[in-house]
């Protein structure tokens, strides 16, 4: 089964030589642990480098593609995400923004604390596994007042295993991860790391694409995702495969109650399993904010 998966992947990603090398090296060992890469099933150790290839190729036009795919709505979602968290309300915070390469969330956190609470001590450490995305973020932050201040720093690290010297236990007041957690190989590992680095009383917040329950909206959303988005990827960036992966990975992500349960399994305390409790649906579930508190 993994052999036919590897043949199929070779066809899909034939132009990207990194993928071909990657797939050729995986043997048809059916006992190896597998995970999902969009709708395909791949060996677990292959997923990380495949995701890396996707984000290496989308990095420079990531924001253009986000705007084209969501018709600019992702900005509203991120505004609401940060607005509901109210960073800086109870004094300066040490925040960690994971998978936050291009710095969208970090910038919003720092702006919110500064504008609403006149807070210039809150800091955000942006962590991402992909150095191209971090470079984009660094370049964008040069256009802001936070460049070269202790308020912002960029770190290349794997969310599933944050190095303990750089990211000690119990050191952050806020952990955010926006549109990143569906790309990791093991979600529980990321949640455990989040639990480790947060201080007691601190908040875990995750913004991610999720399940749409409403059948009419769901149908429109599916049509748009599977028919328009890969074509937009072809037209704007010449890279259909990466955007096909992105829309498929959204469908494979756990539903709202399942993800809330995974957050609780990592040790966090969440609200009730209803919309408005452990999670808040945005636009009917197209995007969703999950929160938890470490006690």
């Amino acid at each position, binding site marked *: 089964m993994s052999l036919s998966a590897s043949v199929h992947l070779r*066809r899909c990603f034939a132009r990207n030589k990194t993928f071909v090398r990657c797939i050729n090296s995986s043997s048809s060992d059916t006992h190896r642990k597998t995970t999902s890469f969009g709708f395909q099933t791949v060996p677990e150790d292959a997923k990380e480098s495949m995701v890396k290839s996707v984000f290496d190729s989308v990095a420079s036009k990531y924001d253009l593609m986000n705007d084209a795919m969501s018709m600019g709505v992702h900005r509203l979602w991120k505004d609401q995400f940060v607005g509901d968290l109210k960073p800086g309300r109870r004094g300066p915070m040490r925040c960690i923004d994971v998978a936050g390469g291009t710095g969208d969330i970090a910038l919003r956190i720092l702006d919110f604390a500064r504008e609403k609470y006149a807070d210039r001590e809150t800091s955000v450490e942006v962590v991402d596994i992909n150095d191209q995305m971090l470079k984009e973020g660094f370049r964008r932050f040069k256009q802001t007042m936070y460049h070269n201040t202790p308020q912002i720093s960029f770190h290349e690290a794997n969310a599933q295993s944050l190095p303990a010297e750089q990211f000690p236990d119990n050191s952050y007041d806020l952990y955010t991860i926006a549109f990143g957690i569906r790309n990791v190989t093991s979600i529980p590992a990321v949640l455990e790391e989040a639990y480790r680095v947060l201080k007691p009383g601190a908040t875990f917040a995750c913004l991610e694409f999720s399940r749409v329950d409403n059948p009419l909206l769901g*149908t429109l959303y599916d049509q748009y995702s599977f028919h328009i988005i890969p074509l937009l990827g*072809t037209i704007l960036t*010449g890279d259909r495969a990466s955007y096909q992966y992105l829309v498929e990975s959204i469908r494979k992500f756990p539903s709202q109650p399942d993800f809330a349960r995974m957050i609780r399994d990592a040790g966090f305390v969440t609200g009730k399993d209803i919309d408005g409790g452990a999670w808040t649906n945005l636009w009917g579930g197209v995007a969703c904010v999950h929160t938890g508190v470490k006690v």
Partner: protein
Amino acid sequence: MSLPRTLARFSAAAKPNTASMKTRLINTTPAYPGHIPLNSFENAFLAVGSAVMSLLDPYRADLIAALGETTAGPALPRLRDIMLASPEGRQILKDRPRINTQTVDMNALAQLPEGTWGRTYKTWLERTGVTPDSREPVHYVDDPELAYVMQRYRECHDFYHSICNFSVNVESELAIKYFEFANLGLPLAAISAIGGPLRLNAKKRSILFSEYVPWALKYGSTSQCLITVYWEKRWEQNVDDLRTELGIRDSPARWSRKSSATVEPSAEPTST
């Protein structure tokens, strides 16, 4: 997909224990490696999107290719039938030869005598700096044979340049597009021919429309349909004989002094 059909799919899926839960309304299995099936809305969307984007950024060869495939329509079956009507064309459809540096021995071509078609093509490649390896594979044509016809057209494009003795600057490309439209009838050629000149300055546009286009339309329509020519079997043929056989004469192309400088005077192609 239309809403009624989608709802029908949902209601079919809601019935328990029926085989229809697994049926799909459109076939999305790839018909050949690299095939990306599109429904008619996606096809139109890609056609319009690639037209706009390739006008904005003409270096996106992959989008020009996509535009050609999504707008080909009835032109490809017509070309395939023309190929089937000629013995040489039938041989091409049977062999399905590809043109790239793996399949064509460039060294052998360089050693052919002056005045042969193979040597002319190799000289043309050197003068223009083009390589036959950079052609985008076909993705959006559903029938594998028609996909091959499209691929063949794309790979033979350089041959058309070379046999008509045109360079690869913008006005020469447009001249070849006019030639192709008259000769093969592909909508992409017409679209490029209309959209392309918008990017030219007045002097180049005047050369294009006063010299190149009349020649291209006249000889494109009277010469043999070039898709039926099995170029790879004619490397040793004398290029002037080949041009006479095909009906191509008096090329008005101008080459800049820079590209002529690398070639010895004896090899200068003379327009007959």
